[in-house]
């Protein structure tokens, strides 16, 4: 139970960063931290105490294995996270080209 609470705390750390920071790069990093928290939660759901990774090896007896389905899901989730991060970075770079700053309080003008 404490592990799930710590995972939720990690999500809150990311949310705090998104809501309070003014630097665009720090906001992007906070969004990544929120993604890591959700990935960690999915992996924790699949965990069983005293079990091994779900891969057969030569000369090793079969033992209780963790659930491989959330791990495959998390692999997809990591790829989507990469896509969103790349999109956010591209938008931040375009904003920097226009306004010469990453501070979101100084990006006020709608055009020009």
């Amino acid at each position, binding site marked *: 139970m404490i592990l799930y609470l710590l995972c939720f705390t990690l999500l809150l750390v990311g949310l705090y960063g998104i809501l309070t920071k003014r630097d665009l790069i720090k906001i992007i990093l906070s969004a990544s931290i929120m993604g890591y928290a959700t990935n960690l939660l999915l992996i924790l759901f699949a965990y069983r105490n005293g079990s091994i*990774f779900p*891969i*057969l090896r*030569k000369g090793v007896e079969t033992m209780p294995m963790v659930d491989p389905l959330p791990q495959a899901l998390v*692999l997809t989730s990591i*790829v989507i996270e*990469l896509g969103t991060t*790349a999109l956010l*970075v*591209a938008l931040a*770079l*375009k904003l*920097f*080209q226009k*306004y*010469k*700053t990453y501070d979101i309080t*100084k990006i006020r003008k709608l055009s020009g």
Partner: protein
Amino acid sequence: MDNKSGMTIIVKTITRITVPIIILYGCYIIFHGHLTPGGGFAGGVIIALALLNVMIAFGREFTNNWLNINFLEKLESISATLFLILGILGFLISSVFLFNFLSHGELFRLLSAGTIPVLNIIIGIKVAMSLFLVVWVLAGLKLDKGEEL
């Protein structure tokens, strides 16, 4: 290599030594994807990071001359198409998408598990090329030194 772009001579020399080893390790992870932890995605990321290592150490201009970027873009599209073709072939053979129609072979052999190693190689190429090209495109944006508005 006496141009001013990129980092110092120490970084360039170390990069020249380590990058082939990193690419070899990525190929190992891809080819043993059906036997050990890893697979197409993990190996593709390792290969992409090796190429990005070259881009950081030597600069973007050197990378443009060293690699054929147009060919890499075509390779990315071709690998996605090959994945689709393999899936549809399985559908035609047994009416299940991505059916494993090749011989499964013996357990724990390198040449086993039917189409899974082939799909791992295709995914590895796709992931390596797309991850490298994303950062390559982002590095091409011109950023002048910022001054306050």
